[in-house]
């Protein structure tokens, strides 16, 4: 399933995404989450793997599913639906983990993201991306980089670094820590 998703769009020349990224337009991986289409810039995406064998980490917020063994490295896995304050994703045959590489404070690391299904890799030109809506969204607007128009429909382009960065982790853990102080 993931393979078909990749081949469908991978037809373009390999150097295109890089060059395009510099101009502010590039390829995006789109995926389904709770019936909605989301996208992240493909340069962030390292690989897509089947869902399985996630070891839960105790005392973490619900949107941290746990950790996986990615060829010897321990990689955290995040439930994006829970992150957006929605019910946690239910596992199906099409559920998979998108491994995204983010850079925070000059440090490169991988984070896995649980998605309902991977859709396709889409070219979205910069002119087809509108700024995030100032209000009314269900998702915190600073997680969103913009709304991309694909075939007349909108996909929510996520700011991978923001969504997956530590501030979120830290604050939620601290919140957890405060709970047990009487």
């Amino acid at each position, binding site marked *: 399933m993931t393979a078909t998703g990749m081949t469908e769009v991978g037809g373009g020349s390999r150097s295109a995404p890089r060059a395009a990224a510099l101009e502010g337009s590039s390829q995006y991986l789109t995926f389904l989450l709770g019936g909605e289409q989301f996208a992240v810039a493909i340069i962030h995406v390292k690989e897509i793997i089947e869902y399985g*064998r996630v*070891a*839960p*980490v*105790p*005392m*973490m917020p619900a949107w*941290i599913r*746990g*950790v*996986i*063994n990615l060829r*010897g*490295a*321990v*990689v*955290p896995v995040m439930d994006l639906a829970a992150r957006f304050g929605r019910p946690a994703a239910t596992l199906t045959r099409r559920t998979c983990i998108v491994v995204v590489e983010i850079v*925070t404070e000059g*440090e490169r*690391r991988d*984070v896995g993201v649980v998605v309902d299904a991977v859709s396709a890799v889409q070219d979205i030109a910069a002119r087809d991306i509108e700024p995030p809506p100032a209000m009314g969204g269900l998702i915190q607007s600073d997680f969103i980089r913009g709304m991309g128009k694909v075939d007349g429909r909108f996909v929510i382009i996520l700011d991978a670094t923001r969504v997956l960065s*530590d501030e979120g*982790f*830290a604050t939620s*853990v*601290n919140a957890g*820590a405060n709970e*047990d102080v*009487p």
Partner: protein
Amino acid sequence: MSASITDRVLPTFLAESREVLQEMEDGLLAVGQSPDLAETINAIFRAAHTIKGSAGLFDLADIVKFTHVVETVLDGARQGRVEMSSDLISLLLLCVDHIRAMVEEIAAGRRTLNEALGAQQGPLLERLARFSAPAAKAAAPPAVERATPAAPSEGAPEFQLWDERSAASPAPGVAAASTPGSDAIADHDRWHLSIRFGRNVLRNGMEPLSILNYLGKVGTIRKLVTIPDPAGLVETMDPESCYLGFEIAFESTADKAAIEGAFEFVRDDCRLNIIPPRSRVAEYLRLIHDQPDGVPALGQILVRCGSITERELEAALKVQSSAPEQKVGAILVQQEAVSPGLVDAAVAKQAQLREARSQDGRSIRVDAEKLDNLINLVGELIIAAARTDMVGRRARSTELQECTSSLSTLVQHVRDSALQLRMVKIAATFNRFQRVVHDVSRELGKDIGLVVAGEETELDKTVVEKISDPLMHLVRNAIDHGIEPADVRAARGKPARGTVKLNAFHDSGSIVIEVSDDGGGLRKDRIVAKATERGLIEAGRKLSDREIYALIFEPGFSTAETVTNLSGRGVGMDVVKRNIVALRGSVDVRSEEGVGTTVTVRMPLTLAMINGFLVGLGNSVFVIPLDMIDECLELSAEPGHDYTNVRGQVLPFVRLRDVFAVEGARARRESIVVVNYAGRRAGLVVDTLLGEFQTVIKPLGRSFQHVRCIGGATILGTGDVALIVDVPALLEQSRRAAVRRERSADRGVHA
């Protein structure tokens, strides 16, 4: 030397310089306590000399120039003309820092002094001059005085001295300075040095002239005869080879080792004979005897040098010819040319040198990165072996299981040896604090000595690197806050000199490092007052000593009334604790008012791997460090109790299931794992016991840096991830929770 060669050997120079500078610093700090002051000063001098020498090879004029001045002062100290005062030691320490900074500049690829260093150098030279100036005016032998360049800062050529001397000295044989003696002992106070340089001396970047120049500082060259190698006099000579040899009559009060030191850099590449003053003529005879054929009559040269007289020579030659079968050595013994004591000393010295050399041969320098790589690979190997083992068991093939079990044993040995490679003694870390104590106590005007124990204790290099900052803080704290000012100490009847002690030892899979002082101790009332003022505790609450001392590790806490530039800004102990805890360690304080304070730091021996014990909780698997486990028992406790009876002893326990909020029903038969950390025993209740597992610690990464009670992750044979329980943190948390429960119960009663 071509540029490419310089580039290739430069790293060696840098590494060696850093080491030698460290030796120099250690030596300077040891001056106060050394039983053999002369040898210590000699060692310092040699270190400076080595740096100057090797910097010269690389044309590092700045280092040579500066080190030369340092060396001159040290030479004064060596000869007793300059007193090794504490001021001088401090100055020399600064000079070591300065040379080190210059070396680091070279390491960074900058060949010229930067402005900051240049500005630093002026005052240092000025202060050094104060120590060397009176020496030059004193009644030093004129030759020595001349050997000291008057104004090194002018960049005067180093070898000017010798040019001048060689021009001025009379041609060999013109004047025989010694009066011919009639005894068989060459009766004068001169050494005789016979040196034949190897062909490669010049190619190796050594210059015979500079050695002679250096000799001029150890003593006075009275006579010198150049002995050219005949091979150098023919047309086929190679202009890059060295064909020189010297016979030197030499006056000096230095000992043989010091004179030999002049030839240190060419020692392996030349033939050197040093004949002490008042040696038997036979010594000279042996020298003559040892010459290869084709060398002009050496006997005559010796006579010309004035080292022996013609008559002495004749007499000795007669003895030799009358006993042709006898070895020269035998003649020497017969003639009592060397005293038995001297022979013993020489033999001992040789054995020592051999030992040192063979030690060198047995150890090799390895890039730390290569070791880290190896250890990472061993980690992967362990995981792969665990997987193989599991598959082997599932296959139910006895043969395969035999293979995997011997593989596992081997892997375990490989792991232990690999980790052993990265183990270093803590001595180097401890010794660095000599300097800190010296500098800081001077700065504060306190008299403090550092006592070090257990420096042989070994621990992983990665731990050493991370522990030195927190230790530095603790030591500074002990000096600054711990040790009282001299007048207070006197009033309390303590010795004026305060003592800071560093101690290290192993304790059940951890290394324990103690930093103690014999100072005023922590004042509980002040800690409580301060903590109340800062809102860290509620006023009027009763606290145990342990809890009070733990307060000093709270963020924003400091009891120092005066803020010095060392500590007292309240950003200290909490950082220390955080850093230590981040390394799976813990820190503890004991103190007695008026007697002293001891801070105990406990660290894991290695950060890379642990021997783990697997336990199951629901569907999850957790790892408990095996070193901390005392025993495992079946749980038998009355419902609602959080303690149980183990052979008549009360054992408090925590349910890991509750701590980690694991879902699912409890196992029917739970087990209790008894852990022991820093002398505290507690039980951890788990569902199932899954057995031992040697494992690699994988960091959980930034995402989980705030997670408590989990010390990392590891990968099981199945490929699943298991989390490692951070026992110290878990015990600390449950202790706090218990205290809180008690208090809320108290409050409930009072309300």
